[in-house]
């Protein structure tokens, strides 16, 4: 309770940076997805921190909805990855450069 909110915000910024870095430097689509999840978690951490700092529960409701949307996004995204893999048998982003074939 006595930890300053800015510590959590710095931690959140660092986690977001790690996620963005992974998204930029990795080629495997699955790991890029995981990095997206890391960035969503960083946003959730700042939401909860601001919710505590401002004494407003709405931030935690926002995190609840972010969790639901993240679950839906992962389901659809992994479905697309599996569909692409069946057609092209690759999970590397550089090999998936065309939408038509």
């Amino acid at each position, binding site marked *: 309770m006595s930890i300053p909110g800015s510590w959590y915000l710095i931690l959140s910024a660092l986690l977001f940076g790690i996620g963005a870095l992974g998204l930029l430097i990795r080629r495997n689509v*699955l790991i890029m997805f995981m990095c997206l999840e*890391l960035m969503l978690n960083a946003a959730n*951490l700042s939401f909860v921190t601001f919710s505590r700092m401002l004494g407003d529960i709405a931030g*935690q409701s926002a*995190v609840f909805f972010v969790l639901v949307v993240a*679950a839906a996004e992962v389901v659809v995204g992994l479905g697309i*990855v599996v569909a692409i893999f069946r057609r092209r048998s690759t999970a590397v982003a550089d090999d998936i450069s065309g939408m038509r074939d």
Partner: protein
Amino acid sequence: MTGLLLATVARTIPDTAVFIAGALMILAGGIGVIACKNPVHSALAMVLTLFGVAVEFIEQQAEFLAAVQIIVYAGAIVVLFLFVIMFLGVDQRDDIHDEPLVAQRPLAVLLVVISVISIIALGFEASWAVGPHHVTGKTFGPYQNVGEVGRSVFTTYLFAFEATAALLIIAVVGAVVLARRSGAATSDAAIPTSEPTAETTEEVAS
């Protein structure tokens, strides 16, 4: 005075220890996700990060979200990731040193470092929306978190909650459709009816 300071520090130590433990879990897991060559190891490192975030949630008295974080992320999403990794086969040839675009990785590192530094500097400089950066607001009292979140979700955000239900149904149906259609395309005889149309449209276009 010294006694008061010592009492304050002694009261702070458990919180600080929990915060540091959670932060180490988060950062180690995050670095593990982007550094492991094997996608399974990346998924397990992501579990570490998610648990760390849950620890930080509990530290900030968001118990409901911590539980949901564990159940939804570690329990469902990571398992889904692992299933897909197993389904696709572990892809070992995602080589870290393979660099198709010239100097993309150094530029990415530079960009991320600049972005994070500017976010932190801005946060300290501008005191975003919360006054001084060391403010800790009032809390909701013990054992009230679930009730508060529930009251907020079911009154203020009721419409968003209903839309969430529709979103989940759509996502599940969409995933089933995606998985089924590609399976039918490889095995079914229905594909020749669609392929010539694609070719004719291509000829017309050219």
